[in-house]
């Protein structure tokens, strides 16, 4: 209970911080303009060339590089849009209102259409308003969620017979969800998992994060969570902020071993697993709260192909997406500080194997090992966990 109150307090403090940061920024801009001085907005450069990785920290952190945006004829539109959107966000923070990115797009569009003077600001599509929101976050070095702006809930469907979640809403109301009462239905973590407190009814042995939501669902339908004291999460591809923060929450509050199970291909290794474990270059400023450095890579591992006689196949280089993933993997081997770190040489080895052999193997290939046994995948996963057949 004490923990819950602490968490709610932290959010409240942040909200007042956000408001004062926003008004300070506007004050600085207005007084610069009064002096006919160009306002300059500075933000942390969020890119791989400004990323640092230390195994002690466990995730990608920003370097010293900054990007500056000076007001001029070319940037006046971008800045006008940013200040216009900032006004909406600050008002939301002030009244504790939360909007999705899509809602904000329509709110902004509606105001612009309604007021003739604002027409030049009009957003053609949601991408435009999303990038303005991202720009504001980078400028203020704040999370989008701290500006009360969330993405649509996606991924992170969670199954467990032991996990209990306590959610504290913005007004302080608390709800308790016992996941064992949901049957085979999943619990969907919210976009602000920071408001959640976790508790185990019984000892939980491990948490398994599965790349494919469908596969997680199949395992649960076949009784995985009944037979094993565990938490099962479907990541649904590249993990959203909510999934990343949710896994971090599990890591911090439950201290259980975390495993990731996904395809053996370059895209999964870099875009899904690396993001879940160490964050991404695009989100350098928020990786500290949006990744779980203790997640281990359970597979599919290259040696699993021979060991379990898995069906693998060559990567089609004529496929634009696959060719791009391979190119990105080559770049990662030489530029990504996460894969360059010697502590991660085994993960680097997998990436190297994928680039050299140009083959891939799906997570679902475990099913094909014995198609007549619906528990085949579960058996292999448990076998791998028990035998330590994963990469730390």
């Amino acid at each position: 209970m004490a923990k819950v109150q602490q968490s709610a307090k932290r959010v409240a403090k942040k909200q007042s911080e956000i408001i004062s940061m926003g008004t300070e920024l506007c004050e600085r801009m207005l007084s610069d303009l009064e002096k006919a001085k160009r306002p300059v907005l500075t933000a942390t450069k969020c890119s791989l060339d400004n990323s640092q990785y230390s195994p002690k920290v466990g995730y990608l952190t920003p370097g010293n590089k900054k990007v500056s945006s000076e007001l001029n004829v070319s940037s006046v539109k971008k800045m006008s849009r940013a200040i216009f959107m900032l006004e909406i966000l600050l008002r939301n923070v002030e009244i504790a209102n939360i909007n999705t990115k899509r809602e904000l797009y329509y709110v902004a569009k509606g105001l612009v259409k309604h007021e003739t003077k604002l027409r030049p600001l009009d957003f053609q599509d949601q991408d435009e308003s999303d990038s303005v929101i991202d720009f504001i976050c980078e400028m203020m070095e704040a999370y989008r969620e701290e500006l009360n702006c969330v993405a649509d809930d996606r991924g992170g469907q969670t199954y467990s017979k032991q996990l209990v979640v306590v959610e504290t809403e913005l007004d302080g109301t608390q709800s308790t969800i016992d996941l064992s009462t949901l049957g085979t239905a999943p619990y969907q973590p919210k976009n602000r998992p920071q408001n959640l407190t976790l508790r185990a009814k019984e000892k939980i042995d491990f948490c398994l994060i599965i790349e494919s939501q469908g596969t997680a669902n199949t395992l649960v339908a076949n009784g995985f969570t009944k037979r094993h004291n565990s938490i099962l999460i479907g990541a649904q591809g590249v993990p959203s902020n909510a999934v990343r923060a949710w896994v971090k929450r599990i890591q911090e509050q439950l201290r259980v071993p975390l495993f990731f199970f996904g395809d053996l291909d370059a895209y999964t290794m870099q875009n899904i697993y690396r993001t879940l474990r160490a964050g991404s270059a695009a989100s350098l400023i928020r990786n500290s709260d949006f990744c779980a450095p203790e997640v281990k890579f359970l597979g599919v591992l290259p040696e699993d192909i021979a060991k379990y006689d898995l069906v693998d196949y060559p990567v089609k280089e004529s496929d634009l997406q696959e060719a791009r993933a391979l190119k990105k993997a080559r770049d990662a081997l030489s530029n990504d500080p996460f894969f360059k770190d010697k502590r991660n040489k085994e993960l680097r080895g997998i990436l190297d194997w994928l680039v050299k052999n140009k083959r891939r193997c799906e997570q679902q290939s475990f099913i094909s090992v014995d198609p007549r046994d619906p528990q085949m995948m579960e058996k292999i996963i448990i076998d791998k966990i028990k035998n330590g057949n994963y990469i730390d």
Partner: protein
Amino acid sequence: MAKKQVKKVTKKLAAEVDASAEVISRVRKSAKQITTSSTAEYFAKNLQQVGFSSPVKAVLTTLKEALDNSLDACEDAGILPEIRLQVEKLGPGTLKNTDQIRIYVEDNGPGIDPDDVAKVFGEYLASSKFGRGRCSRGQQGIGISAATTWAMQTTATGARVVTKTKSARKAFTCVVDMDLKNNKGILRDKGTVEWSSPHGTSIEFKLDGRIQLNGEGGLLNYIRSTILLNPHMTLHYEISDVPSASVDRVVNTVPVVPQATEPHPHTMKLGEFMSHARLFGRMKTSVWLKRGFSRVTDKVLQDLVSQKGLKRKVLDSFVDSLPDDEFKALFSAIQAVDLLPPATTSVLSVGEDGLALSIRRIGDIDFFAVLSRKPVICDFKPLQVEVAIARLRERRGEDNEEQVQVLRFANRVPLQFDKASCAIVKAITSVNWRSYGLKQPKNGLPLGPYIVAVSVVSPFIKFKNASKETIDASDELVEELRRALMQTGQRLSRYLSREHKAGELEQRVQHIEQFGPILVETLGRILGASDERKQAATAGLARILEKDTKGIKKDLADAEGRLASYLEEKKSRLAGFFEGLDQDEQFTGTDAAAPAPVKPAAKSGKGKV
């Protein structure tokens, strides 16, 4: 029993002999059925090969052949052409989905001797130009005879001809029919009539076809193209329901079609080489080589002996008694010896002045760029490329994303079909027009309200088909065309660069006016700032953004300077064109100085192309 068997065998043998006899008789019969056909019969059955593949093309091809003949005849006689043409619907045609069309073309050419009328209009391959190596429009003598054939096939009427030479008192008139069996023209209804013109020819066809006015294969496009490349022509035309119009000539000199040069030995095959010798009768081989070919000099003859091992006696022998093996040795040696490339004097161009003057007749234009490349040797044939690009004011509009209109010409004849595989289109799409300021999709034609006219002139144009609709895209030709297009593009870019800079400046100013107040107003609202603060910020913002427009203003001044110096250079290059213009018609590429639309011709004043 033996007798019976013998009888049986004999009967069988007799049957086999009968069968063989029947086979032999059938073979003999079929051998008798192998016949020869006349050229006329061949073309009569294959009119699609010479441009009569559809009712629409039949009308256009007939008009084109008649007009080409008139223009060639006038130029050969040194007469400035004045052409009248009419195309009208008479009623339903005999073929499905066709109309009966009357096509009438009248010129002020030298007229045709009555004895030659049957040959000119009723005989295939009867031509005064075949293989002469000149840049005339017509070459083989097929087109107008094919039109007569089409008229006969579809309406059972030939071509009505009226012609008068300078020396004749009255004009000769007749109807030309064709004797397809013998490839001969037959004249009917012969007579004489009074004709006001001192000389000239008119031809009238009634045939089945369909009139298509607009689009690439339309009659108006053909007229527009013909006007562009013939600045010395006056044209009066009445086409279907389009208001009749006249377009006056803008050049008062008749283009002189250069005489053909002698053939170049490297362009010949052995058989041609030997046949060429027979035209010269009895003369020494060395003399024949020097007289019968271009680029063969005494030095070349020496090289043949000293470097290529040809026996001296071959050159000293008479060419008509040269044995085949010595001919072959001579041919091989001359192919191996170094020769200057063929001369380029046989090509004829319209010229930049002529193009510039003529381009104003095809529409209301903003600005234009013209270019005549120097004649070059391409695929071992002399060739010249000319390009004219103009922006049409009438089609301007911000969202005009249509492809440019391409006008293609071969020896001044418009090409209107089978665009995609033509060397000209391949060259246009291979140029990066974006660098000259035009929009262009990848590997496509550029977009916008432009006309891109490209003319290829050569005595030996390689067409892809007998109907001369497409120029074969050899690498060398496409490269030459590319260069011409790029040079013209550079000239055009002077105008567009200035326009783009002006547009950019306008956009920036608009930007400031639009976003400045919003930015200040929103900041003021968030902070609850006073009106004084907001006013001070607005003034400060204006000062900041004013500084930003300085750079673009300088760029615009530079672009204007470049355009001005280009216009100066253009004025000296196109002196003939600028001489006749008013001060406000200087084609500076700005709306303020744009020329007035082309005036309709005084004669009819009803319209323009």
